């Protein structure tokens, strides 16, 4: 098998391995014999668990990526980041006064931002991270929410920030405040929550709870997925 495929050399924590060309970093690391116990999740670019850092031979840039979404290249020096330590403040969203500078109150370190743009450059989702931190300093929940909407909380910005900001926690708080206090309530959601509270789905839940794992698996595969035809907008 190896004879037919073009092989490349990657370095995992300094040790050289030959792996086939065309694998993602995650698969290449696994091919080399490592097993991910932490730092791997959906393998589809959504969960943000596989944040990784690397350098390429002859390139001075320290690069960041999701291991499941990036193709391994010849001469890559790799290291996994299984976890980014980042404190998340405790708060009760019901008791927050959104008119105050809540983001600065819970995360005053955002005010240390030096606008170096390292966060934006490190974001695998290509978000304008620096711009949403700047919006956070100004208390602009709406701007933070829209600019950070696609954040998958991988923590790479946080790992790279010279000002020690935890961007993704700040943005999450902003989105929660915006969702709770500013954005209009989606009618279909309100309706569905009402149905749930009235017990419309209680019977169904009870039925699911009693199923064995195998039955559940079968039911999951057979489940009906509601499809919205292209161009149609769900009625609110």
């Amino acid at each position: 098998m190896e004879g037919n495929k073009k092989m490349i050399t990657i370095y995992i924590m300094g040790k050289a391995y030959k792996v086939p060309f065309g694998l993602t970093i995650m698969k290449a690391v696994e091919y080399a014999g490592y097993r991910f116990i932490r730092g791997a999740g959906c393998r589809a670019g959504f969960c943000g668990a596989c944040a990784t850092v690397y350098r390429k031979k002859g390139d001075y840039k320290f690069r960041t990526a999701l291991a499941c979404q990036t193709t391994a290249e010849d001469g890559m020096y790799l290291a996994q980041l299984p976890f980014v330590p980042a404190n998340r403040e405790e708060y009760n969203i019901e008791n927050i006064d959104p008119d105050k500078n809540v983001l600065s109150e819970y995360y005053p370190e955002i005010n240390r931002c030096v606008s170096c743009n390292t966060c934006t450059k490190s974001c695998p989702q290509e978000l304008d991270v620096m711009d949403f931190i700047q919006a956070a300093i100004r208390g602009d929940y709406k701007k933070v929410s829209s600019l950070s909407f696609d954040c998958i909380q991988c923590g790479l910005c946080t790992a790279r920030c010279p000002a020690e900001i935890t961007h993704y926690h700040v943005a999450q708080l902003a989105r929660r405040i915006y969702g709770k206090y500013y954005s209009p309530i989606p009618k279909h959601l309100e309706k569905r929550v009402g149905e749930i509270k009235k017990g419309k789905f209680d019977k169904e839940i009870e039925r699911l709870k009693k199923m064995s794992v195998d039955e559940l698996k079968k039911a999951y595969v057979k489940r009906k997925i509601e499809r919205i035809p292209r161009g149609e907008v769900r009625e609110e």
Partner: protein
Amino acid sequence: MKLPYFPGCTLKQTAKNFEKSAMASARRIGIELVELPRWNCCGAVSSLTSDDIMHHVAPIRDLVRVQQMNDDGILNNEYRLVVLCSMCFNVLKRSNMLVTKDAETLNKINEFMDTEPDYEGTVEVKHFLEILRDEIGFDKIKEKIKKPLHGLKVSPYYGCTLLRPREIGIDDPEAPTIMDDFIKSLEATPVDNPYKSLCCGSYHTVGNAEVVAHRTYKIIEGARRNGADVIITSCPLCAFNLDNRQELTKKLHPDFEYMPILYFTQLMALAFGEEKEAGFDENFVNPVPLLEEKKLLKKVVSRGE
């Protein structure tokens, strides 16, 4: 006159009325302030160590935006950047001076900001008061006001960053007159204060507010002893310290009496009949009773009375 404008974070956050009143007043004298489409915090204070280039990146990034506005046709060969906040003004001007004098530092910053076009050193950083004095002229402002502020005794508080250091300041650091002339142009009476440029304690308001409160006492009492009704300032941090710290000042100095503190643009908006844009209700010490007493605001009689 269409000029690029840098608001600074606080004018977008806790002091929106300072900006609103400036915008309304600027329109009355034919100035359109065009906010930079994208901007970041300047840093509020300059890094003062010789080897620290990192903290000059933020202000230079903002100056690049002025270049981009010209490149994008939003502005036509207009490189005078107007700043309303004295601290932002000081920081932006210092960084600009540094890189225009020192090509090596400019080069380093440009190299570092590899996602931006190079800064070419073309921007001139101007405080709004400078524009009023040098481009419009205080006599022209006097002609255009709608409601002369007769009978209002205003003490200008210059603070630090509008005047010092000398190479950045917009007036004589020891004997400034620009705010006095501004007050006269609105036909109010300027009142001197020996502490008009004594530091209010600045960022000590974080973590050591008492230090600020003692200075607030000194500054406001200095103005009062000379007969002032109200103090104006051009710095949102001075405004916060002199206004919001009066509660603590009263606690520490029981003989202290509250005095309204206005941003200079609020006073301007009042004289231009734009009092709604002045947002007086957002000030900590309510200036409305004073302005009503001086017949500069109409007394709103509530239905219950």
